[in-house]
């Protein structure tokens, strides 16, 4: 499978993503600069964490206007897999590919530690390899990860089975309904605050995050088999 990792000025988890996807998972990875509108022949786009464009205006607000995001929007519209982690999640919310918004953590502190998250559904190309009764140990590292949406939106996300991940046990940042990750309407776009790419190597304490990428790889292989048939 071929992943495209987008790099914005201020991205700082792009190399973690490349390392995990190619080093730990053995997949092919290309880096895509934010000024490029050409995604190439990737099967999935990875929007990494960091502080794109310095987080000026709002987290993810300037990235939304970048050339690469125009292409990512079209890619998503055509059913391509898009995963946004941390700042990538914020960008996907700002672009409108995902509902809701991420604001300053309830406790105002930047939080950097490993948490338990429970997959809210296994019915998605990102969580098909996950069990909803088994929490994953995945690190978070954010100052603005409090997920906010109005009640009607949250009810709709729940009714449509689009809560990808919830914090298990303590809610670290005050997110509404303990939401750590959500799926887009077409289920092919995922945004999540925890960093699965930082939990793909047993050497760093947990390889639970690889379940997300194994799910994506399975989805891409199924799509390719369908295409070939």
């Amino acid at each position: 499978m071929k992943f495209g990792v987008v790099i914005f000025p201020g991205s700082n988890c792009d190399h973690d993503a490349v390392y995990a996807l190619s080093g730990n998972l053995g997949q092919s990875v290309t880096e895509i600069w934010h000024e490029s509108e050409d995604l190439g022949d990737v099967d999935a786009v990875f929007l990494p964490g960091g502080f794109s464009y310095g987080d000026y205006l709002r987290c993810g607000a300037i990235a939304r206007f970048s050339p690469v995001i125009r292409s990512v929007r079209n890619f998503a519209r055509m059913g391509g897999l898009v995963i946004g982690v941390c700042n990538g999640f914020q960008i996907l919310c700002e672009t409108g590919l995902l509902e809701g918004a991420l604001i300053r953590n309830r406790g105002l502190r930047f939080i950097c530690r490993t948490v338990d998250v429970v997959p809210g559904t296994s019915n998605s190309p990102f969580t098909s390899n996950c069990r909803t009764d088994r929490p994953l140990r995945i690190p978070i590292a954010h100052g603005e990860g409090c997920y906010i949406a109005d009640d009607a939106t949250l009810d709709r996300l729940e009714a449509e089975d689009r809560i990808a991940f919830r914090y298990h046990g303590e809610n670290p940042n005050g997110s509404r309904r303990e939401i750590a990750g959500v799926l887009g309407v077409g289920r092919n776009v995922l945004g999540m605050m925890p960093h699965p790419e930082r939990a793909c190597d047993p050497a760093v304490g947990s390889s639970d995050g690889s379940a997300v990428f194994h799910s994506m790889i399975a989805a891409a292989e199924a799509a390719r088999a369908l295409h070939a048939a």
Partner: protein
Amino acid sequence: MRAIIQVAFKKTVLDPQGRAITQALQSHGHEEILGVRQGKFFEIDLAPGTSRETARSNLERLAAEVLSNPVIEDYEVTVLEPS
């Protein structure tokens, strides 16, 4: 001509920074302060000769689409008289 755009969290969205500031001011002896909401302030310079109506309608759109996030924020546009 200048315009001012103010952006702040909607009343329904918890503003943790505003709450921290409120507590700081109260602990500074200002118990009359019941609440603070922190927001953003944009001062925009407009080219001379821009019509007020054009400026207002463009800025309303920009405030709604770019300078604020409608999920969490409200905005207010004020076009100032040339001084």
